[in-house]
């Protein structure tokens, strides 16, 4: 089966920031989490997928088709939620829906009204009067009502309360139950992805650090805690990032099994969370 998204060698140069040779694939039927610190290039990747930015090189294929050559067909199969959902603020939700719906041949008013009820969104309310959480819910309702095959969400959970975050994650999990539907979800709140993502792509300073199945990442990567002997020359190559404390050293390895074999029982080896990985890879590298 074709992939939902295939990105190969994507480049974008802003002068002071460069997205370099970004390549990853979102298989159909799965949730891909795009993680990275603020300013890593997550939003740039998403905007390039939606053709909101001009790419300087590389290829973006959605459902096997080049986004530039088949823009209308591809976009009609995508539901999107931008990090800041800007709409025409003075309009009511009903009018906004009436504006967006005609663009999609697959728009289903029943789904839209059901979602509005479930999200507790009043159709007569002006968009400007909604809280950030409600704005996000509305953007999601629009994205889901045209039966998109691919959802692209840019930081949808940042600034939202845990209740709505969980609700959103549950909805995304339900969304991909229908085989063939996929999600690309960018966030720096990694705990959200640990709950639902099937694959993780980690981006930092405009480059891909890794892109792999989440379970494989969480299985392989580990945090090692021990004394300063951990930094002995023969151990150093085990670490991808290290954090020194007054009497101890903590490090991140991408091969927990090898570290266990090499360091034995003298150290504490724990599974790494996505947050650990992000922290050590972005803040711990210089200390190895």
């Amino acid at each position, binding site marked *: 089966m074709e992939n939902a998204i295939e990105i190969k060698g994507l480049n974008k140069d802003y002068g002071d920031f460069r997205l370099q040779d970004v390549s990853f694939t979102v298989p159909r039927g799965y949730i891909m989490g795009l993680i990275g610190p603020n300013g890593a290039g997550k939003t740039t990747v998403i*905007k390039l997928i*939606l053709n*909101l930015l001009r790419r300087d090189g590389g290829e973006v294929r959605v459902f096997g088709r080049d986004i530039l050559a088949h823009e209308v067909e591809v976009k009609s199969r995508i539901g999107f939620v*931008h990090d800041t959902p*800007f*709409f025409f603020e003075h*309009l009511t939700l009903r009018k906004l829906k*009436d*504006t967006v719906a005609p*663009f999609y041949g697959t728009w289903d008013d029943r789904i839209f009204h059901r979602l509005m009820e479930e999200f507790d969104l009043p159709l007569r309310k002006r968009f400007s009067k909604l809280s950030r959480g409600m704005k996000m819910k509305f953007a999601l309702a629009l994205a889901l009502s045209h039966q998109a095959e691919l959802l692209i969400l840019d930081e949808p959970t940042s600034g939202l309360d845990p209740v709505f975050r969980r609700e959103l994650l549950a909805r995304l999990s339900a969304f991909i139950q229908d085989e063939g539907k996929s999600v690309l979800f960018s966030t720096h709140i990694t705990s959200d992805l640990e709950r639902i993502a099937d694959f993780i792509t980690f981006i930092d300073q405009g480059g891909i650090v890794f892109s792999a199945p989440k379970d494989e990442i969480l299985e392989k990567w580990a945090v090692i805690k021990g004394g300063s002997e951990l930094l002995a020359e023969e151990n150093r190559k085990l670490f991808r990032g290290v954090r020194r404390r007054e009497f101890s050293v903590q490090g991140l390895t991408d091969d927990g099994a090898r570290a266990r074999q090499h360091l034995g029982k003298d150290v504490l080896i724990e599974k790494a969370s996505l947050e650990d990985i992000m922290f050590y890879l972005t803040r711990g590298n210089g200390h190895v």
Partner: protein
Amino acid sequence: MRELMLKDLRLHKKYIIGFGAGCILYLAFFSSRANNPGVISIFGAFLYSIVPLTIFTREDKFKASAFNLSLPVTRKEFLAARYLSGWLLMLALYAGTSLLTIFIPGTKLGPSAVFQVKTILAVLAFMAILFAALMPLVVAFGWTGLIAFLVVFQVLGIVFMLLITAFRPGLAAITGGIGKAISAAQSALGPAGFAAALIVLLFLLNLASFKGSAFLFNRKEF
């Protein structure tokens, strides 16, 4: 295309009705009080071309461009809808003003004065030139582009007045030359041929403007 035009109509309905009605009432009233429909018509053409542009720049205000361009449309379609909507709005404003001028109580102008072919062609030409010149500016710079144009236009107006005072004979020769060229073209082509040629020329001008705007719009990032 239809969806895009309806979208603009739906999003800016109140603004179009409010601003458009004000514009029609204002121009119709002053036209009805003037003996010469030409001057007000030309001033009207300026306003007719500004109205759609102010609507398009409202997208800057709401920062809605990223959302609009995430919908299943190409940038070319998006822009083509803008040109078409702009022209429909300008023509509607002109038609509305002209009709109201005839029927407004105490009007000095009858249908024969308001609907002179010469006046209609002059209004169309001014609208087409202004719209064609301003659209690429608005596409590239949004609201700032429009404001910059209006400021430059004011300054150019003052410079033009000063030039008239200082070089009256020279300018009279230039305007006279243009008038003679138009008269020569009219007699060579005949009234109908001249009107057709002018409309084709204005269409080509707007087509060139569209191509230029599309070039700029494709390079824009949101």
